[in-house]
């Protein structure tokens, strides 16, 4: 039975990976020494690095590591938690299905029928998980958890200002789990300073973080042989190359970027230059030399002091530039060029065709330009005058060995990604079941939830709760969000429009990797029709209406773009029935504002566990109850490992009981750990793990091949078409 075997096999694989990563989880975690297949030794606490360094040929293991990698590319955090949560989910699933195993022996005699039933069962279960992710998780986050969120913004005015101490706590908690114990406070301080120095304007953090995340490789300089405490922030831009010729200059410096050689060539590719005599050759060379000198002279007349070139310039150009007091930097990479263009908005200088037209509109000013020597390596140090919200600064990371430099670089890069996610609004799609008497339109529901979210005072007074204020702003921002979420009310709308509403509402947060969701779609497509029929017992069905709805469902299936929308379609028929029955469902969109954080130490996990169990008790649908329970129990696996080494009053059961008591009596939860973690990151992690789980569950058969299949291009068929 391949499908049932796949959960057991996946569980074994996940357990093996869990033993590797659980040792380095959290602030108490240790470094893990790993020998790569190439013989190199890697010492790291970074889950993503460790997983990528392992030599895994098992297909399920590779799927898991690929999911982790794609999650890290987006969020920068959570590789270890991913594996641990996935392992616990698989364990919970296997326990549940082990009990059901006996029933199969009696229900179906034929083997192939039983195998098919198993495959259907796993697809059914994975659909249930997807439904949970699209409906229940958002609802629980919005309704229950949101009242516990804190914010790292302190907004005394309309503008959101970033609170420095909260940012330090957020980054401190992040680096605690990433770098060695002696370095994490230094790294978090360094990064805090960097973020504040780079942001020229207080409210433009998102753009700055985006730029830094994209261009991180160019903004950091690694220096080996110095202690870690020598790491510092350098104002300006540091290019990882040396000057070809350097002429010191004072005052403001004009910069020109060129992407081709200044010296004209005899011939360009694709053309011919026939030489008939020696004299002609000499004349041509002379002309070339004169023209080069003229261009360089003209540059000097325009006060250009620095020439940045993406290609290698000929020696004549360098010589002329040196004579005229122009510094030259050659062989810039395309990434460095794009960074410079983003910062100062300078377009490359195009050499004019005719010798008389010299228009130098494409120049920019810089404050200084000088060589920088870091531990016997020379760099170019530019003081650019930025035209965007990013004030250019670079980080010089020092460490005794190259391995530690790389470790810190990865940690920093991940931290920027994490911050970028934390500073974005998280859009939620909520589906509620309400009775007709209390039906209100969408915005009203949202407002009501805001009024009920009175946040309690907590011990640490430096963090201000600005959730209520930011909610006010978000209602205006909701109209402008890029995703086309529509706030649908409880009114019955015609079917065509409803389908469009559903199809347009693609929350960008939940689609972490389009490749994965496409796979899920492909895997589940043969069974879609079947599974939909199976849900009839769970939805209050009116047999008279079932026939026209079947055709509607099929039509809507063809328009599906994302797999998780399949679940929404199943609820569409309910709209029609709301005329007869008393229950109806409303869709409304909500969002968690940017900067929502929670204290570290398993708070998010315990809260989600508690509210999911409450929800499961109230839930009507059985498969959702099962899924909620599995997830609620699995999610506690992470804090259990975090508190493994603590004893007595700080052990996990004590913490858990205290938290539960606080929740049941509506008191504030007291956390004895300083440090914050981003809610958006946790939410992303949950959705990524659920996506990975559905990918694994829907594998029916694994075929091993010796090598990649070759692409076969059939040109004849293309012509026929």
């Amino acid at each position: 039975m391949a499908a049932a075997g796949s959960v057991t096999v996946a569980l074994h694989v996940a357990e093996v990976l869990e033993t590797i990563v659980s040792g380095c989880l959290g602030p108490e975690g240790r470094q893990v020494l790993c020998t790569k297949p190439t013989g190199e030794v890697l010492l790291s606490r970074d889950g993503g690095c460790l997983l990528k360094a392992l030599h895994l040929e098992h297909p399920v293991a590779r799927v898991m590591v690929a999911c982790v990698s794609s999650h890290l590319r987006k969020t920068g955090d959570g590789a270890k938690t991913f594996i641990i949560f996935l392992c616990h989910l698989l364990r919970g699933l296997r326990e549940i299905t082990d009990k059901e195993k006996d029933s199969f022996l009696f229900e179906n005699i034929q083997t192939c029928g039983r195998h098919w039933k198993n495959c259907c069962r796993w697809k059914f279960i994975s659909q249930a998980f997807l439904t949970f992710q699209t409906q229940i998780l958002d609802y629980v986050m919005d309704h229950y958890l949101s009242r516990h969120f804190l914010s790292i913004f302190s907004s005394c005015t309309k503008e959101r200002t970033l609170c420095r101490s909260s940012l330090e706590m957020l980054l401190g908690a992040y680096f605690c789990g990433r770098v060695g114990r002696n370095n994490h406070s230094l790294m978090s301080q360094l990064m805090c300073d960097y973020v504040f120095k780079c942001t020229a304007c207080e409210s433009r953090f998102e753009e700055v973080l985006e730029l830094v995340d994209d261009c991180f490789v160019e903004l950091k300089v690694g220096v080996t042989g110095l202690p870690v405490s020598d790491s510092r922030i350098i104002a300006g831009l540091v290019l990882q190359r040396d000057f070809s010729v350097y002429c010191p200059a004072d005052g403001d410096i004009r910069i020109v970027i060129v992407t081709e050689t200044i010296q004209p060539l005899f011939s360009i590719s694709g053309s011919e230059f026939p030489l008939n005599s020696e004299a002609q050759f000499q004349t041509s060379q002379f002309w070339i030399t004169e023209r080069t000198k003229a261009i360089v002279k003209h540059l000097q007349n325009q006060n250009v002091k620095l020439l940045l070139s993406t290609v290698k310039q000929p020696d004549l150009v360098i010589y002329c530039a040196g004579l005229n007091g122009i510094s030259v930097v050659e062989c810039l990479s395309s990434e460095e060029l794009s960074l410079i263009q983003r910062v100062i908005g300078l377009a490359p200088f195009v050499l004019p065709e005719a010798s008389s037209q010299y228009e130098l509109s494409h120049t920019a000013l810089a404050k200084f330009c000088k060589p920088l020597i870091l531990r016997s390596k020379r760099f170019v140090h530019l003081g650019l005058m930025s035209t965007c919200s990013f004030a250019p600064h670079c980080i010089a990371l020092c460490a005794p060995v190259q391995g530690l430099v790389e470790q810190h670089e990865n940690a920093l890069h991940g931290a920027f990604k994490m911050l970028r996610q934390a500073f974005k609004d998280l859009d939620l799609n909520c589906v509620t079941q309400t009775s007709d008497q209390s039906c209100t339109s969408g915005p009203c529901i949202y407002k009501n939830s805001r009024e009920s979210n009175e946040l309690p005072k907590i011990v640490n007074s430096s963090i201000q709760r600005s959730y209520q204020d930011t909610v006010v702003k978000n209602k205006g921002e909701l109209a402008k969000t890029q995703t086309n979420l529509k706030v649908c009310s409880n009114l019955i709308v015609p079917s065509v429009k409803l389908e469009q509403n559903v199809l347009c509402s693609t929350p960008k947060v939940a689609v972490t990797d389009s490749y994965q969701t496409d796979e899920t779609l492909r895997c589940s497509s043969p069974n879609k029709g079947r599974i939909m029929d199976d849900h009839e017992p769970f939805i209050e069905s009116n047999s008279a209406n079932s026939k026209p709805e079947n055709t509607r469902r099929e039509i809507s299936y063809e328009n599906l773009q994302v797999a998780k929308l399949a679940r929404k379609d199943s609820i569409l028929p309910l709209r029609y029935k709301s005329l007869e029955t008393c229950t109806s469902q409303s869709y409304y969109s909500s969002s968690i504002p940017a900067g929502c954080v929670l204290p570290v130490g398993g708070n998010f996990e315990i809260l989600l566990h508690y509210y999911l169990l409450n929800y499961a008790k109230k839930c009507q649908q059985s498969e959702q109850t099962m899924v909620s329970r599995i997830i609620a129990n699995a999610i506690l696996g992470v804090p259990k490992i975090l508190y493994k080494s603590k004893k007595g009053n700080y052990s996990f059961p004590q913490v858990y009981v205290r938290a539960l008591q606080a929740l049941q009596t509506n008191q504030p939860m007291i956390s004895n750990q300083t440090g914050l973690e981003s809610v958006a990151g946790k939410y992303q992690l949950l959705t990524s793990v659920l996506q990975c789980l559905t990918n694994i569950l829907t594998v029916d058969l694994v075929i091993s091949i010796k090598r990649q299949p070759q692409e076969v291009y059939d040109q004849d068929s293309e012509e026929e078409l």
Partner: protein
Amino acid sequence: MDCGGLWLRGSGGTLLQQDLPAPCASLPPEVDDFSWEPPTEAETKVLQARRERQDRISRLMGDYLLRGYRMLGETCADCGTILLQDKQRKIYCVACQELDSDVDKDNPALNAQAALSQAREHQLASASEPPLSSRPAPQPPVPRPEHCEGAAAGLKAVQGPPPPAVLPNADVVACTQEALLQKLTWASAELGSSTSLETSIQLCSLIRACAEALRSLQQLQH
């Protein structure tokens, strides 16, 4: 109810209004009253042993992976564990080559013979319940007193005959005493070198059972 009933048994979707123990719902819900019972103590022990073995395997595999071994896509034909391959391209099964050379061959979770012997003890325990009610050690379910067939045979020899109260043959008693003493010495040596909790518990119960058996043998002699 076809596929929908795969997950839910019988009662059509409205089963979940029961109250769960408030904080932790690690127990799965009672689906049907008659289809699921809590595991007996023996089954719990077996489950625990299985889990511990699986944990040990996972830990060993993790260590090997960190040392540069490769995790293959195949499983071992004997035990179903995922295979590893080292740098010299040699295939290695962690369970078969490392763990099972240990005491686990007597683990009823794995070995059919050991399970058979445990079942036999069950039978004996239920059959000879009245006369042995004062002797907790030979009752098989709670600990696993036997460590191998020899001790099981010895205990059976002791448990079997009491009602007829026939004077046993002196040779048989001497042989049995010999065997029991041998077992005792062996078990105490193993106990000294054992590192696993489960194994130590088993060894202690074996020693206790041997001692009890010796005492009852001596009572028989006198």
